[in-house]
């Protein structure tokens, strides 16, 4: 299980990107989403976020996404980057394992 040790961020607010913030949780996953495409993709983005956290084995986190129309692959990558930054792991990343291609 990855512990969220400190607040971390990944991504930008450019069009077709998203900015992901992770913070230490209160024992659960707390998810918030602000998206330009929430009406069409809100549920899909939430599903991608929870699936990504599950792959990473993160169970205790506050995850906030400000989305500007990012594709699923981008959202996944930004969450993974934020989580590993928070865990201060920058080497030996599990490519093809917890980080799915």
């Amino acid at each position: 299980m990855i512990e969220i040790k400190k607040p971390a961020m990944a991504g930008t607010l450019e069009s077709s990107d998203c900015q992901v913030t992770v913070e230490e949780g209160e024992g659960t996953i707390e998810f918030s989403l602000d998206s330009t495409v929430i009406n069409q993709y809100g549920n899909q983005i939430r599903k991608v976020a929870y699936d990504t956290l599950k792959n990473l084995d993160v169970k205790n986190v506050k995850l906030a996404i400000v989305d500007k129309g990012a594709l699923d692959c981008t959202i996944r990558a930004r969450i993974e980057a934020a989580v590993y930054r928070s865990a201060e792991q920058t080497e030996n990343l599990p490519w093809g394992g917890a980080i799915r291609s």
Partner: protein
Amino acid sequence: MINAVGRDIPEEILEKTGKEVFQGVHHFDGYTYRKHGPLTQAVINSDGSKLVAGIHDVLVKCGIKDGMTVSFHHHFREGDYVVNMVMEEIHKMGIRDITICASSLGKAHDPIVPYIEDGTISNIYSSGVRGKIGEAISHGKLKGLAVMQSHGGRVRSLVTGERQIDIAFIGAPTCDDYGNCRGIGGNSNCGVLSYAIADSLHADKVVAITDCLVPFPNFPAHISMTRVDYVVEVDAIGDPKKIATGAAKPTTDQRKLMMADYCTEFVVNSPYFKDGFSYQTGVGGASIASTISLAKEMKERNVHMRFGVGGLTKPMCDLLINNQVDCLLDTQDFDLDAVESVKDLRHFRISAGQYADPFNKGAVVNKLDFVILAALEVDEKFNCNVVVGSDGVITGAQGGHPDTAAGAKCAIVITPLLQGRIPAICTEVTTVTTPGESVDVVITDYGIAINPKRTDLIEAMKDVDLPFKTIEELREIAQSITGEPERVKFEDRVVGVIESRDGTIMDVVRQIKPFEFSEE
């Protein structure tokens, strides 16, 4: 009741508006009617001036009261001050239930949102709305209905008398004290006053508002004193910087340039590309780029254009300067080059009625070979949406889209396959504004789809080296990248009507439902 584009129009709306459902683009061909004339107050005395001290005084003189309809034109685009100035005064006077009948409204008019919320304004007729007005309407703040009309459809509604204007306010870049208005000169030079012509012909009271009073006679007048009741001089009717900007730099966006090249390649290989052809294009980056690349092909192939129509920009006016086109027919000027070009004797001002009214004895759009358009969404039946965003909020305008698409022999829509994450090619558009039967070709960065009904165009293109695909293939490519979008959720209440150019109902717009995550 289901209409010809498959949209279910609620009975309640048909009753409320007294309208019929859309039955096809040519349903009203040959329709016969008597035109509506305005109430007219004769001026026989020779006092010699129609000047009134201010907006307040002129409203009193015109007998402003609850429930009246007031009209505006949008030649000052995002630099317009007139709508806000008049509505602020009407609000101060405590008048309620006003219907605004504007040729279009934009972000410049965000300040009237409080008047929508407090009931000063209860109905809106416009080509479209953007910004905060669109949000207010989509969130159900407008008490009555927002009716979106095409430029031609608006004129039709005034000429037939279906829509009657009590007071028309015409922002005039120059005007004399007797009401002769011109779109040229002054600080707020917009070139033409095409959209206001119908208002001047059909409104009961006509008020010219100017910030540049010139000595009588301001000739040749674009709107004659014979139709103007009062003239008001104010400090400023618009922000010149936002009325006509310098010409947009030609785009360097490779995606747009590629689509423009596809478009030109399509045009030159179509049967309509020959000496004496006619052409109209919009102001989007790809449209402008396609005019520039078409000019090059015309020169190389020694093909000459007879007339160009617009919504004009520099690249269209360059065709005139370079003698590649005989004349331009002008309804609106988007940049300073176009405003300047109005002085050219081969550059003709036309009214919105001449341009596109489907109920006159033949409009310019009927003589178009090509029109190059944009769209927010196009669906598998080639229906286009140019008014409602994919998120369900009203954020655009019909403009001349349905008019030119209906009239032109070859209506081409250019749109990138994806707008951010939103697929532009979809199963069903959020709202239909232009029926698929008017749309012949869709050009995207991922391929080109020809409307299957246009077997002649399909045949003409069979040896042309362009990435042709079916519209279904384009939709599948889009969704394979973005994932399938969920349908936006709406409340039952209808907040807006998309009026077809012939006055029937093309579609309705419902109040937006705030997003909630589905149950896990």
